[in-house]
């Protein structure tokens, strides 16, 4: 313990340097901007700046990239809240309540909660990373394909929460997401499925066009249908940051979501998107006012953002202790380490503790920088989007959506897909079909299929799904997650009937 603290202290001392601090600051600023632009994912932002690190020392290079990683994960929330356009897939959850808050004129509150939840998520997950990286990496190694499948199944149970009263429609939407995820080359046998002869579909349906289409374009198309000129003006918007008391009220939400984000982030492939969905689900279930979720619940914003940034610490666990990337961005970071002749793995902690703990210290500093830049910058963006007349804002969002969906793979087909999903998002919104389960299906589909096939290949039969304790536990949690609201509803109905009977007796 003392060793860890002394190494960490040394890490902070290494950062007391103008160049290092400027690099963290620049990294965070670039990350936030990159994350806020739809189509620039955190991994892309890190990869774009990778060549810059050639001329830097290993420590400087890594802290720059960590700054980008931290900033980009938060940046997606800014556009998610201001214009319902999640900059990154993992910030989709933030838009569920962030955008309604913005529409209610509570932009400052939404932005403030998102920022400080991100900071809390980043710091809490870094603490977990520092003290528990070795034991947690052992847990990650115990995860077999059947456990991954069970984890994804657990993720799917969140659909019950996302749908609310329209849960039947939410189920249909999640199945649509899961089915369209089967398009492209089959991950196990390499067989073409539902590609319609279009080469761009061989890689399947990408996440970004679906996300931008359903959320950003769907919202714009829906607003265009109701557009009545400039009647929107005159709405008062509150840009005040939320008071400390509000953050204090949400403290357990911050902590829970950060821990969930960190734990799920550990498992390679799971990442911040699943973490934010599961965390949102947990918060809604624990909330005294679940009906507010989806209509501007602050805990909804904090859950998504804290889990998203909490997943960064989690993704670093297998990266540093085992040399296995926990996310796409972590994979790029491994490349950056290898460029500087650093091989991540268990020996890294013993052979180069200076580097490891400077990295940890830089994660704290990056979060502090994020708070600083966020406080100054995000309000400006929100003010800009709110002050723009809708007749300029809507065309700009459409133009950004087209650009964002093109930029990922430089494919026109992806832009067409984005527009198709935009129309679908509009129709779904109009006819009360929740769009978020489609995203959940797209996130989980491939992981489920790959792990189901792998589990069957590894064990030779279905036994791993009921003989492995960890798998069984995850399935039981999932079943409980589905059953609990049903039981609670049944109890409420029974209590309602009993009280109605009692009232009748009194009458």
């Amino acid at each position, binding site marked *: 313990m003392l060793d860890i603290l002394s190494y960490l202290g040394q890490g902070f001392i290494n950062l007391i340097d103008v160049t290092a601090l400027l690099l963290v600051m620049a990294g965070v600023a670039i990350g936030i901007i990159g994350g806020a632009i739809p189509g620039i994912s955190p991994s892309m932002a890190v990869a774009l700046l990778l060549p810059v690190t050639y001329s830097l020392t290993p420590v400087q290079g890594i802290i720059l990239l960590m700054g980008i990683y931290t900033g980009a994960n938060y940046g997606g929330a800014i556009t998610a809240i201001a214009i319902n356009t999640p900059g990154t897939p993992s910030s989709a959850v933030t838009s569920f309540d962030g955008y309604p808050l913005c529409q209610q004129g509570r932009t400052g509150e939404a932005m403030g909660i998102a920022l400080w939840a991100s900071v809390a998520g980043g710091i809490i997950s870094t603490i977990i990373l520092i003290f528990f990286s070795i034991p947690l990496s052992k847990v990650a190694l115990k995860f077999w394909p059947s456990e991954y499948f069970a984890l994804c199944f657990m993720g799917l149970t969140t659909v019950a929460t996302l749908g609310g009263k329209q849960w039947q429609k939410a189920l249909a939407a999640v199945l649509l997401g899961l089915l369209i995820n089967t398009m492209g080359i089959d991950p196990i046998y390499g067989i073409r*499925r539902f590609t319609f002869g279009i080469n761009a579909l061989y890689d399947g349906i990408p996440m970004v066009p679906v996300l931008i289409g359903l959320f950003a374009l769907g919202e714009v198309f829906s607003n265009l249908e109701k557009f009545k000129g400039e009647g929107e003006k005159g709405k008062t918007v509150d840009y005040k940051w939320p008071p400390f008391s509000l953050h204090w009220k949400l403290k357990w939400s911050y902590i829970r979501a950060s821990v969930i984000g960190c734990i799920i982030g550990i498992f390679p492939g799971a990442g911040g998107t699943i973490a934010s969905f599961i965390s949102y689900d947990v918060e809604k279930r624990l909330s005294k006012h679940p009906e507010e979720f989806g209509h501007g619940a602050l805990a909804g914003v904090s859950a998504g953002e804290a889990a998203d940034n909490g997943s960064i610490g989690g993704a670093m666990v297998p990266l540093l202790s085992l040399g296995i990337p926990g996310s796409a961005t972590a994979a790029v970071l491994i490349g950056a380490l290898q460029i500087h002749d650093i091989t991540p793995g268990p020996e890294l902690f013993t052979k180069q503790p200076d580097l490891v703990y400077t990295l940890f210290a830089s994660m704290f500093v990056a979060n502090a920088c994020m708070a600083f830049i966020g406080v100054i910058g995000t309000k400006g963006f929100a003010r800009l989007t709110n002050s723009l007349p809708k007749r300029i804002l809507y065309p700009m969002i459409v133009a950004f959506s087209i650009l964002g969906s093109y930029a990922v793979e430089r494919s026109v087909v992806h832009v067409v897909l984005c527009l198709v999903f935009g129309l679908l998002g509009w129709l779904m919104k109009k006819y009360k079909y929740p769009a978020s389960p489609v995203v959940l299906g797209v996130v989980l589909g491939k992981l489920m299929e790959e792990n189901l096939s792998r589990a069957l290949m590894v064990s030779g039969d279905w036994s791993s799904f009921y003989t492995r304790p960890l798998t069984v536990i995850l399935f039981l949690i999932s079943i409980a997650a589905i059953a609990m609201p049903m039981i609670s509803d049944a109890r409420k109905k029974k209590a309602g009937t009993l009280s109605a009977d009692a009232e009748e007796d009194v009458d």
Partner: protein
Amino acid sequence: MKAIETFLKPIGTFLTNINPIFLLLGFVVIMVGFFFLFGLSKKLKAYRGQMMVITGLCLFFLLFYLLTFAFKIRKAQMVYTTASTMPHVWIFLMIPVAIMVITSILNGKSGTDEPFGRWILTLGVAVAAFISVFLFEYIGYYLSSALLLVLMMFLLRERKVAVLVGVPIGWVLFTYFVFAKLLFISLPMGSLWTGLF
């Protein structure tokens, strides 16, 4: 099971080999048919939009189901799971889910359909966006996106010439410097410009 496969395989192969535009047209024709069908009953008319969405989804799932019979799966690969296992799981799960959705709609749990507003404006913008994307190849991204911006702003009743000119120019400059120069993401130049220069 074998008999079903024998019966559906030629249909799946036919649908796989057909031009996707014809598939789309077929889908539209069937949906138009359902639109009129749901208009025949007074009760169904109140939920026509919601019913159209779930019908469209079912049709989409049915198409995918038929297409699975044309997958080129070798016998050696038929161990535990095949390429069609997962699609089949989701498609079969859709059957009870669709029944639940239709029941909940007809029971009035979701309320009646919201009336249409300025849907022509929405469709107009969507069509303009589609055309703009197809024009990438000919006039390039920059000109195409600038024209789209002008058109959309005009449709949304922007009449100030300075805005109609300034916003697209600002947008083109922003995308050029940020994407092409800073991020090295080349945007389509179009045959018009590559031919000229």
